[in-house]
């Protein structure tokens, strides 16, 4: 059996940053494995450790730089990786949910996995739709926001819990093949061991172009255009407490007393 995990390298921004046009300026960009995908990778690796003959393949849309992030996933136990990139993708301004789902559907068609795991959302663009759009496109069943998975390969069923709002969980049986979007907390992601990091160097990481996957370059013409990016203006009237730690703690203590929650 095969489990495909979508792995995204996300841009994270630190305490200080500047915007240039519709992007965070290059010098303020940091890159990391998407938090939600980290849990998806762990879940796939745990499945492969508890069942016989399961191959874990990762798929990433991203430039060469994301190899570093992909190697992290390989070091944690994925068997091999695909990365999709070419000049058209490089030139694209926004890849919306539709575009990502279309590209990944070509990967699913080529790889024919039994189970696809994606993160619930990506930390940077926060679209939160790629996994479900992908399932619909390839005709797989799906479940979104999964925080518990009991995978029965023989029965061809994934029994999941979907984490709804307000501490309510929905228990659902999903027939395979399926796409599950993974919520944090489903497991405890491991750190890559030194041995894993060494082994990851020799695991296959194949780079494909859109043409290799038979995807038309027009996929990069997203319907959605990001035309502006800005730090949101707030109508906040926060009272900032300044000074040394001791001074601000003193003022804060006064506030707590004024509010009647401390003596």
């Amino acid at each position, binding site marked *: 059996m095969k489990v495909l995990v979508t792995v995204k390298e996300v841009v994270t921004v630190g305490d200080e940053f500047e915007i240039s046009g519709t992007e965070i300026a290059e010098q303020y960009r940091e890159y990391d494995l998407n938090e939600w995908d980290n849990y998806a990778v762990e879940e796939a690796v745990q499945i492969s450790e508890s069942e016989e003959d399961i191959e874990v393949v990762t798929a990433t849309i991203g430039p060469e730089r994301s190899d570093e992030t992909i190697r992290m996933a390989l070091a944690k136990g994925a068997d091999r990786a695909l990365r999709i990139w070419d000049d058209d993708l490089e030139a694209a301004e926004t890849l919306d949910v539709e575009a990502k789902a279309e590209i990944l559907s070509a990967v699913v068609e080529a790889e024919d996995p039994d189970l696809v795991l994606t993160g619930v959302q990506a930390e940077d663009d926060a679209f939160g739709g790629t996994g479900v759009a992908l399932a619909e496109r390839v005709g797989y069943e*799906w479940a979104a926001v999964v925080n518990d998975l009991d995978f029965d390969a023989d029965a061809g069923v994934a029994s999941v819990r979907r984490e709804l709002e307000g501490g309510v969980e929905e228990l659902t049986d999903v027939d395979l093949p399926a796409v599950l*979007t993974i919520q*944090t907390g489903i497991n405890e992601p491991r750190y890559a061991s030194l041995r894993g990091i060494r082994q990851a160097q020799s695991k296959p990481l194949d780079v494909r172009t859109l043409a290799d996957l038979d995807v038309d370059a027009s996929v990069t013409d997203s319907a*959605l255009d990001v035309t502006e990016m*800005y*730090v*949101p203006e707030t109508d906040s009237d926060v009272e900032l407490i300044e000074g040394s730690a001791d001074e601000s*703690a003193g003022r804060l203590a006064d506030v707590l007393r004024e509010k009647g*929650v401390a003596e």
Partner: protein
Amino acid sequence: MSDVLAVAEHRRGDLRDVSLELITAGRELADGTGGNLHVAVIGGDVDAFADELNREGVDRVLTVAEGEEFNHGVYTQAVAALYDEVAPQFLLLPNTVNGLDYAPAVATRLGLPYVPDAVGLDVDADRLVATREMYGSKVATTNEVDASGGVTVSVRDAEWPPTEAAGDAVIESVDVEIDESTIRSTVKGFEEVGAGDVDISEADLLVSVGRGIEEEENLELIEELAETLDATISASRPIIDNGWLPKNRQVGQSGKVVMPDVYLAVGISGAVQHVAGMKGAETIIAINTDPNAPIFDLADYGIVGDLFEVVPALTEEFGG
């Protein structure tokens, strides 16, 4: 083609608040295009829901009596059928957990552009102008989509006020043929999680800790402060995900909604799903090293500083 079709949400017999917020957002869009607002409800006690959804500004309520609870297979098929029938320009869905489970599928099935998690909407000729947030709410973006051929938008809950006033909509039941053979997931039931010894929603003073605490051992600092102040400890999601505190301490969309007199957010960025649980606190105080952290947009008092210095100093202030 300038109408709006909004799809309500309900769970375990209750219409969810987001349904009435969708009416407000939908009316705004319909006013922008000069179209009608149609609101659909699928499954459960649709007649009772329809009465509740009959609010000011709604032109038509459509009911589809299929199933009791949400099933994405039924919803995807029913909404696609309603879309064909109403032929709206805007399909408006909630960006709730269930919205995440069917909105992208509907958009794909209908071949419409999909704009997820909008926090602001405007129409300019045939372009939809949506405001979205990125990078954990640190930046906002303006997004434009050619809406001449229709568009699916999911809207963030609690961004639009609910429409309260009663309306005089036409209520109509619609028969939709659901192809059961294509539905390959079965909802088995629900379970409440996170009960336990402490009910954080009862506390007057919450000291809430986030990922800024870095290590489990460091929680001691927070415990000392909470003990000194006789406060209750709550947390953002990463602390719970790490297993450092039990699930009943989580504040937020998937945790608890709290309304203490004072909410002291320590090392919490203020991500939207966290804010969903604590924005009702009477007074919000944030301690965070990042002056741009979204929590400061919400806070009444803020200390831009290192929790490892401020928290012990505060404990000391109270003789701890």
